């Protein structure tokens, strides 16, 4: 992104400014602005019903915004019909045409654009080559596997050389293994075509893995826009901290406020030192939301007392309630003396040293990794 900060002359592939849309009494999209640099992979991440699909449909031209402007390559597209915008879309269920074979599906857009007959076949062949499916041109759609359909849906758009490619949760219908493989493949395809991809999803891992930038959307607004790492480690709001990545979450009250750091006690009676995030430092007596990611919690075996939290480290004692084995991503659920459950990442080697339910453990984690937001 640094290369794109050279001034106003930088043309963005897609810009939205102050876009709003209301359906009856529901404010689906509320004053959303975004700028997507050329050739980047941008994701809009949000729970279902947050307005992300409406935003995408406005970019594609299927809905008109009530307010605001949408510019593609610098030119406003308000009032431009969907078929006149150089924005192509991969639909949630792909919407490949079942009555046409693969070749005709891809050639459809070229024919609509009035490409000369002689040029159609080479173009279709070239794009099939690029999605690594050179031999399927004569197949019918129902003969393709899920992953192949996916790539044909992308090829059908990319053959038209769009300014922006919109993808509306296209991996949702695939099984887990294929979804993991397609994530990497989509990222590679985006690199290869060097086109701006706007990817809509409710799956945070899809967004984190593939994107250069992610916008987290909630209730029609952007909560935060940033690189995946930034969203994960420096969330701007409690919603982002809770939605992006797994986390332990408590509601609590501030007992002592300091500079950037506060002491808080959760409703169940756990006391801890937290790093105040989200701009403002709360003062004593304020309600806060506290987040700690499982991978930052260190688990040691052995009994101990819940020592007072020092200025930099939180300590808790507890017993192992259960183990959630998932290979390298295994977790342990620890029941604290106060009664709540805390999730922590552990390595389970299968040896005799592994934790077992009932073991006494000590949990420690850094105050820096304890994020708290004014509730």
């Amino acid at each position, binding site marked *: 992104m640094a290369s794109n900060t050279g001034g106003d002359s930088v043309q963005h592939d897609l810009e939205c400014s102050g876009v709003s849309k209301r359906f009856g009494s529901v404010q689906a999209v509320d004053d959303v602005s975004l700028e997507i640099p050329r050739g980047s992979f941008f994701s809009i991440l949000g729970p279902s019903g947050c307005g992300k699909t409406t935003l995408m449909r406005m970019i*594609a031209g*299927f809905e008109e915004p009530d307010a605001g402007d949408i510019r593609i390559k610098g030119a406003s597209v308000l009032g431009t*019909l*969907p*078929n006149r915008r150089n*924005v*192509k*879309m991969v*639909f*949630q*269920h792909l*919407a490949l*045409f*079942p*009555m*046409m074979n693969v070749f005709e599906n891809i050639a*459809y*857009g070229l024919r*609509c*654009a009035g490409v000369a007959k002689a040029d159609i076949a080479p173009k279709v062949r070239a794009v099939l080559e690029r999605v690594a499916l050179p031999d399927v041109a004569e197949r019918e759609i129902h003969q393709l596997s899920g992953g192949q359909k996916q790539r044909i849906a992308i090829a*059908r*758009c990319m053959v*038209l050389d769009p300014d922006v490619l919109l993808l509306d949760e296209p991996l949702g219908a695939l099984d887990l293994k294929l979804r993991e493989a397609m994530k990497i493949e989509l990222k590679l395809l985006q690199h290869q075509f060097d086109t701006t991809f706007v990817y809509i999803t409710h799956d945070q891992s899809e967004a984190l893995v593939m994107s250069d930038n992610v916008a987290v959307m909630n209730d029609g607004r952007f909560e935060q826009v940033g690189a995946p790492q930034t969203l994960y480690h420096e969330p701007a709001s409690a919603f982002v901290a809770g939605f992006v990545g797994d986390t332990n979450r408590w509601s609590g009250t501030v007992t002592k406020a300091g500079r950037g750091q506060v002491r808080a006690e959760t409703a169940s009676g756990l006391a801890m030192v937290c790093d105040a995030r989200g701009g403002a430092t709360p003062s004593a007596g304020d309600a806060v939301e506290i987040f700690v990611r499982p991978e930052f919690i260190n688990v040691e075996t052995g009994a101990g007392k819940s020592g007072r939290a020092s200025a930099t480290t939180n300590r808790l004692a507890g017993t192992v309630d259960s183990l959630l084995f998932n290979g390298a991503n295994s977790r342990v659920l620890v029941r604290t003396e106060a009664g709540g459950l805390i999730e922590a990442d552990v390595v389970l080697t299968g040896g005799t040293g592994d934790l077992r339910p009932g073991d006494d453990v000590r949990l420690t984690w850094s105050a820096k990794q304890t994020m708290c937001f004014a509730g």
Partner: protein
Amino acid sequence: MNKDIRRLTLILLFTPFALWIVLLIVIPHIGMFILSMREKVAPRVFEYGFGNYIEFANEPIYWNTLLRTGSMSLLVTAIALIIGFPVAYYIAKIAGNRTKGALFLICLIPLWVSDLIRAFGWILLLRETGVVSSSLQWLGLVDGPIEFLYNDVTVIMGLVYTVILFMIVPLVSTLDGMDNAMIEAGYNLGGNGFTVLRRIIVPYAMPGIVAGCIVVFMLTAGSYLTPILLGGKNSSWFTEQIYNQFITRYNWESGAAFGFLLLAFTSLVVWLGLKLSGQTLSSTVARS
């Protein structure tokens, strides 16, 4: 034991269908076919041969009537498709979920009244002293009473009205199964309204279109009541010819032959239609 019960169940379930098809379809048709192949040479003396069919070929009025019935039925089918498609598209794609049911019900209401009553309804409206004629006179648009009945336009209009429902129902069910995203994808990839209709909606709906056309064509070509009541003596519908052979001339042999000719002719047209549209019976009528 269990196997026997299952076989018995299967046989019992299959019996009504088998009885229906054998007793009411197969046996009468065999009888009619035998009837159509024999000729009366003297009282109670019959000869077998193609005489009845040859007589049909030698008499232009007969095959002219058949061709006229066929071409007018095709016209009725085409009009029913042109009117029915937008209606079905509206019901399936544009109307909201609740309106959809209501509209479908409204389409079905005419079926609650018998064909005969509906034909008399048209007669009440269109005859010389009917509602339309007297209204026009009352408005001063025409000087004398006008007879709207007994011409081809009225017959075609009445037939379209009777059969259009059988076009709309299969069309609604195919269009209903079409994902809206497919239409949006058609626009998104650069197609205009006409391209989307021609390249996406119509090809997708083709099974429904063909199914509706087959049903409508068969019903129209085989209809008797509407052409006779609305067209009178001028209608020259082939079913009327068959009726005349059986009832007026008491020539069952020739009537049976005509019946088979109508069956063969309509089957031929349907077969041609399927060939031209690249569909099969199992992909169209059996599906909707």
